[in-house]
């Protein structure tokens, strides 16, 4: 049995979680998931500004902080902290923790290869709209293929203490150590699906140990010291989800089921680079306090493709707010919204979308929200999105004047006019898997 713990559900997750996982009990692997789609375009921009950047900058200082404990307790780290510059990330780790052996997985970053793909007739059609990538060629800011668990296992095979990947899938971070430790083969799809689903359960960190849990959330103990998840993985593909003794939070059938369903599509066709996993085969049983045993998982062969995520500059947006107090807070906010829209129309400004929400009334759920006849205050938020930066900028000047020239009791404008933000959008596509060749390097 090996213990694989996830200490980071996204770049920006709780900094203390990975430290506590290493210090508060036994684990064999610490995995850290840093990359969301939005992260790739951010790190690509950072690399363009400075070639020594372009990775999750939280990661090297974390490894520096826990390096001695990692060595002492023989804990190995697998992280997709590399962003678009895994080698630079590894060098910084080596600088802060010279005693650790560090390996990187390369080959997922295809930003420089896009023109070559297009020239060879690989259209990289948008999976949602069917449009060819040529439509946005000039606006691309990053392009990465999602890679699976086997390159990570290969990197662990070098004996590295720390394995740094770029755009590996979140689930591969958990499956990689299992493939390495148990010698699972690329055609053992039930086992690969089991490791994948284990990875899915833990990939959002504490979201399977009581965080964001709707079931009985008021009774979940000690959120302040919530324990992050640990997979106790067996060679036969069964595993237990648990957390360290004495930590807060909860592992129960409810917490695990909620996370199993999180960001799930067709449950019988969970497609990864390594296999297609079937979530309708999962069997759960309680296995003592804060322990859930998972078994029975079935998988099918991988598809001939890998997913590629391309980020590109789409346009601009801005969002601004004004708060109105009772009485009649919602009516005042709606009147203010109508005034803004009339003024934007009078200026002849065109946007792709103008969207208004009423916080405190129904912003999250629309007509599904319960009706409160007299909310104490309502915050109007108006947003616009468009390709024309000037129009979006002009919009940002139309909100604050309402405090003086619109309905009464407008307040909460202290941060000044809203800023214009670039909108980076994502273009999902498929590429034949033989186009992506990964390689492992040990960084000295």
């Amino acid at each position, binding site marked *: 049995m090996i213990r694989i713990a996830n200490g980071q559900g996204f770049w920006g997750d709780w900094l203390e979680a990975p430290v506590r996982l290493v210090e508060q009990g036994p684990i064999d692997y610490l995995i850290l998931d840093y990359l969301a789609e*939005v992260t790739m375009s951010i790190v690509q921009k950072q690399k363009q500004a400075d070639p020594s950047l372009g990775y999750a900058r939280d990661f090297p200082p974390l490894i520096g902080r826990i390096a001695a404990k990692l060595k002492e307790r023989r804990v190995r780290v697998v992280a997709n902290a590399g962003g678009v510059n895994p080698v630079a990330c590894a060098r910084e780790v080596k600088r802060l923790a010279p005693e650790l052996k560090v390996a990187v997985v390369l080959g997922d970053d295809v930003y420089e290869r896009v023109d070559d793909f297009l020239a060879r007739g690989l259209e990289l059609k948008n999976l949602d709209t069917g449009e060819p990538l040529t439509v946005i060629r000039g606006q691309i800011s990053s392009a990465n293929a999602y890679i699976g668990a086997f390159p990570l296992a290969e990197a662990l095979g070098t004996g590295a203490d720390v394995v740094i990947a770029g755009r590996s899938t979140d689930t591969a971070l958990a499956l990689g150590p299992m493939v390495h430790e148990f010698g699972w083969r690329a055609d053992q799809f039930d086992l690969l699906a089991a490791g994948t689903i284990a990875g899915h359960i833990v990939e959002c960190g504490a979201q399977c140990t009581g965080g964001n849990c709707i079931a009985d959330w008021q009774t979940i103990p000690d959120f302040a010291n919530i324990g992050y998840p640990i997979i106790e993985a067996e060679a036969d593909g069964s595993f237990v989800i648990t957390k360290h003794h004495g930590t807060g939070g909860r592992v129960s059938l409810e917490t695990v089921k909620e996370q199993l*369903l999180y960001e799930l*599509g067709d449950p019988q066709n969970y497609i990864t680079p390594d296999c297609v996993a079937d979530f*309708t085969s999962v069997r759960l049983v309680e296995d003592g306090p804060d322990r859930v045993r998972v078994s029975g998982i079935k998988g099918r062969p991988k598809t001939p493709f890998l997913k590629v995520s391309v980020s590109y500059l789409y346009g601009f947006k801005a969002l601004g707010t004004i708060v109105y107090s009772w009485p009649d807070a919602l009516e005042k906010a709606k009147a203010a919204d109508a005034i803004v829209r009339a003024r934007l129309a009078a200026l002849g400004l065109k946007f792709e979308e103008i969207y208004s929400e009423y916080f405190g009334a129904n912003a999250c*759920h*629309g007509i*599904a929200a319960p009706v409160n006849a007299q909310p104490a205050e309502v915050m109007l938020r108006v947003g616009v999105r468009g390709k024309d930066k000037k129009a979006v900028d002009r919009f940002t000047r139309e909100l604050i004047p309402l405090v003086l020239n619109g309905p009464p009791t407008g307040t909460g404008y202290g941060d000044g006019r809203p800023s214009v933000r670039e909108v980076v959008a*994502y273009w999902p596509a498929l590429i034949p898997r033989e186009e992506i060749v990964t390689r492992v390097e040990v960084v000295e």
Partner: protein
Amino acid sequence: MRVPLSRIAHGRSGDKGDTSNIGIIAYEDRWYPVLVREVTPERVKAHFGSLIEGRVERFELPNLGALNFLCYGALGGGGTLSLRIDAQGKTMAAGLLGMEIEIDERELTD
């Protein structure tokens, strides 16, 4: 009798681009058939009104006593494009759990 769905189920929601995924889970296995009967894709779409622009697709996970709904065009463009506060649909499960369902008193208490 009519009760909110939250009486017999919990859940979690998230996003895939402009698609909201809402997982609804029966607290007890015996309530799973009630979910299948009461929480239809049509009712989910009607419950959220204009928030869901596209269709709603339902998948069954009897092994977990759960249903998974994919609500297309439900996040104002999704991800970075969306102008909504809940651009990732994080609160959609809580919103659906507020929907009223019809259940026999015996189904509820047996």
